[in-house]
């Protein structure tokens, strides 16, 4: 049985070229990139090159790229690191704006900050899962110091209006500074703390040119394993001048911001993976993936009655097709597909440790019973037309069977 993988939002296979680029850094160029001898220098050459590759992609300076273990760490560094640094500078009573559809790697650090007296506003989303930039403008307060909005949502794939939000923040900061400059030195207080803009771009990086300059982003998080790179490595972009307090101490790597021996093979893999996302390649892959995704949607439309597409294809990554199949519980669908060698994911309460339906779907206004029947397909560049047709062929009878078993589904 040929296995079919449609869960690329969870992780992607390591690209062959990426793997090849990494190989020398295990046993040949194994040195510690912080060592002065040639072994160290060889490893450093690799990490330096990767740093430039990431910086090129993000349109920032190499010194603005910090290597981490992945987006979770980057998110923690952005939120706790910024608040910690501002606190050390004497800033008090801070306010954070984020959205209710963020990943837990953003939501939980925010909750942790609440416990230390920080106020957090969780913005709602529109029915398509995207934040409305206007909501950000409305939520800004005098003491807002951080806005953290993901670039693309992992569940339904909605793309957020990052540039618009970035512009709103930039204008706000400029106005505030101008007012301060125009106030007599005797009458004005401390120089105002600007609002910093962080975006978790983990799900977007593969599909969108995340140019931090063009989009007015001050901090960005990403993981290599979502872009056909290795697991356990990622990057944190932090614009020069943004105050960050490190979360771990020790070896003084990354300008003291992120201590810990460089994961040189992983970092080289991240660089090699991000290079493959150059504009031309990305456009080509996006087109291919979107075509497969659209085929999946039309096949489901033809073969499965009463299926609800939750992804707004006009405003989503090309890879996402998030469905509800009312009457068929999501985890059962997932398992039945898995027994056929097909991998997907679900937002059903049954499959979450907490037994709560996905917070993203609920935020979009999807009823719990419907969220309960949700299946997320996320396609990748290796999926073929045959894959898609096979999936729908296997899926249709599974939905039918589970609906038939359901005592409360109107058959």
């Amino acid at each position: 049985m040929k296995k079919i993988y449609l869960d690329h939002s969870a992780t992607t296979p390591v690209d062959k070229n990426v793997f090849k680029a990494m190989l020398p850094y295990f046993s040949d160029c194994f040195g510690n990139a912080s060592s002065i001898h040639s072994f160290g220098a060889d490893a450093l050459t690799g990490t330096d090159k990767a740093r430039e590759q990431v910086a090129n992609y993000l349109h920032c300076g190499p010194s603005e790229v910090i290597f981490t273990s992945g987006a979770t760490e980057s998110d923690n560094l952005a939120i706790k690191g910024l608040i910690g640094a501002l606190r050390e500078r004497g800033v008090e009573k801070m306010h954070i704006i984020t959205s209710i559809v963020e990943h837990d790697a953003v939501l939980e650090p925010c909750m942790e900050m609440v416990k230390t007296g920080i106020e957090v506003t969780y913005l709602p989303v529109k029915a398509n899962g995207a934040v409305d930039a206007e909501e950000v403008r409305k939520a800004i307060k005098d003491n807002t110091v951080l806005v953290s909005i993901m670039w693309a949502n992992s569940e339904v794939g909605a793309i957020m209006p990052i540039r618009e939000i970035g512009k709103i923040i930039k204008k706000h900061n400029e106005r505030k500074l101008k007012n301060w400059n125009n106030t007599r030195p005797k009458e004005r207080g401390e120089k105002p703390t600007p609002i910093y803009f962080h975006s978790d771009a983990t799900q977007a990086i593969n599909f969108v040119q995340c140019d931090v300059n063009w989009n007015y982003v001050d901090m960005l998080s990403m993981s290599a394993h979502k872009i056909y790179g290795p697991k356990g490595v990622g990057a944190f972009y932090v614009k020069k001048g943004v105050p960050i307090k490190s979360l771990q101490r020790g070896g003084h790597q990354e300008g003291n911001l992120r201590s810990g021996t460089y994961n040189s093979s992983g970092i080289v893999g991240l660089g090699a993976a991000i290079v493959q996302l150059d504009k031309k390649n990305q456009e080509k892959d996006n087109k291919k993936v979107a075509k497969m995704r659209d085929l999946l949607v039309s096949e489901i439309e033809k073969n499965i009655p009463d299926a609800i597409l939750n992804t707004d294809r006009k405003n989503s990554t090309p890879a996402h097709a998030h469905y509800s199949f009312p009457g068929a519980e999501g985890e059962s669908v997932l398992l039945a597909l898995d027994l056929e060698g097909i991998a997907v994911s679900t937002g059903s309460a049954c499959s979450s440790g907490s037994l709560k339906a996905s917070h993203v779907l609920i935020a979009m206004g999807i009823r719990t019973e419907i969220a309960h029947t949700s299946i997320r397909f996320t396609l990748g560049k290796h999926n073929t037309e045959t894959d898609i047709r096979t999936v729908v062929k296997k899926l249709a009878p599974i939905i039918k069977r589970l609906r038939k078993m359901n005592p409360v589904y109107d058959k």
Partner: protein
Amino acid sequence: MYSKKVLEHFQNPHNQGKMDDASAVGEDGSQACGDVVKFYLKVKNNIITDVMFETLGCAAAIASSSALTDMVKGKTIDEALKITKNQLIDELGGLPAPKLHCSVLGVDALHKAIENYKDQR
């Protein structure tokens, strides 16, 4: 993560479907995740001669319902009432920890069906 037994019941559930001439019906839903199990019983001289189930839920809920129908068929209603969720879980070759509550659904639905049966008389 599921035992072979669970997967078997999930793929080919026993006694699955509706029963039009049931002596009693019982339904139970899970507060936690929103799932529903419905049991249909046919009882003659206090013996459960036939049983069917319908379930909306995860594989653990479906497999539990299916295994439970096997366990109660031919038993007296009092014997059936004595079946515990742990016996059911053993019968299934165990359930993953977060799925233990799913087995309760079936047991509760069965109990409700038996209560309904007793009430009718």
